[in-house]
């Protein structure tokens, strides 16, 4: 199956000449439908830049970024914005929910911005909230929810409609370990059951281990990879 996210030779340089900072150097990465890839590395290694480039929030200095076959480096600004609204979901450490909107309104927002009628958007939002297990909180405001519930709303917003690519930047950073694990389980299930491609940036090995592959970035360069895993039954044999 062809990759949903296909990054080829991505370089991102800030500044020029002597002052140039190479945030990413010649990074290539393909993520297939149903695959969850984790990116690890120390602070300043380029993890978040990789994610913002993949999501069309930042422009590469050189290289290609194909999302569902569209090179976002060559698309116009409005086409990238449309792709972001329809195909790409983001989950951030600090949730980024709008406090004045209820859970359902937060989730429905990207659809409404994209022209979906309010009533239809609300239906999609309710379905997404149900998928993340908090449909009963649809009319609650973010401040009346726990951290774990807010992150579920953020995930619902990231998967609402027909999104194919889920980008998560330290999604468990603000959560305790049990709640963080529930969030990982949810991301994992989205990939397994709905064929979404996921990229997870984390500094936490325990959370990265939920991914099919774990990539290491250092100074903007991919330096290594763990996985993909062998088939499940051979693994059980080994552990015994």
């Amino acid at each position: 199956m062809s990759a949903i996210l296909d990054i080829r030779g991505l370089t991102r340089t800030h500044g020029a000449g002597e002052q140039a900072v190479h945030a990413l150097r010649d990074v290539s990465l393909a993520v297939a439908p149903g695959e969850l890839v984790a990116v690890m590395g120390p602070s300043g290694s380029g993890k978040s830049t990789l994610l913002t480039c993949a999501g069309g929030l930042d422009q590469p200095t050189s290289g290609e970024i194909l999302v569902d076959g569209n090179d976002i480096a060559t698309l116009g600004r409005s086409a990238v914005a449309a792709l972001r609204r329809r195909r790409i979901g983001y989950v951030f450490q600090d949730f980024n929910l709008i406090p004045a909107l209820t859970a359902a309104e937060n989730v429905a927002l990207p659809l409404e911005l994209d022209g979906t009628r309010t009533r239809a958007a609300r239906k999609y939002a309710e379905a997404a909230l149900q998928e993340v297990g908090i449909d009963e909180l649809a009319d609650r405001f973010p401040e009346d929810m726990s951290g774990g519930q807010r992150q579920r709303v953020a995930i619902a917003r990231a998967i609402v409609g027909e999104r194919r690519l889920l980008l998560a930047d330290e999604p468990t950073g603000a959560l305790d370990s049990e709640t963080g694990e529930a969030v990982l389980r949810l991301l994992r299930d989205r990939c397994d059951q709905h064929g979404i491609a996921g990229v997870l940036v984390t500094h936490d090995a325990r959370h990265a281990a939920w991914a099919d592959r774990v990539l290491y970035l250092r100074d903007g360069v991919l330096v290594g990879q763990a996985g993909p895993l062998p088939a499940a039954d051979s693994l059980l044999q080994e552990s015994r």
Partner: protein
Amino acid sequence: MSIKHGLLALLREEPKYGYQLRGEFEEATGAIWPLNIGQVYTTLTRLERDGLVRAAAEPVADDGRSRYEITDAGRAELAVWFETPVTRESRPRDELAIKLALALAAPGVDVSAVVQRQRAATMQSLQELTRLKRGDREGEISWLLVLESMIFAAEAEIRWLDHCEAMLLRHRGRPAKPPEQYAEPAADPAEANR
């Protein structure tokens, strides 16, 4: 690992046969530490010699073996085991720590590459453990505890490797010199008198 105390714990409720103990031990620990039946009977023999278990009078199995039951001394021993924290054994031969130390000492070894290879390998076992956990949502709580213990250990090793990598970067270029308290006594008297 204490097979001795594990068997005593399983005998706390009622007398059991050796094969039964083996099965229950593996069930509780998710077969992470498989026991062979020989180990079980050797341990039972030692426990019997020390007066911590005895052969139960009835019934006797077809193969002539009898069930074992815990004695009062056995119960006391078990109580002490549960009440006493396990000491963190110093691992005098932690192969990984030794490998990294020697990689630093040996000229021409790319220590960062050693760290990265190890981290990828440990991450892979962490992924495998996580997959076991993922597939077992309704699993036995005792088995999940054992699994989590292994997950935490793998996680700790990865964090330690991250830390090593950061330290290596900071120390890059500095001459290798052991810490003062571990330094060999200097052969040169002038050095020693400093």
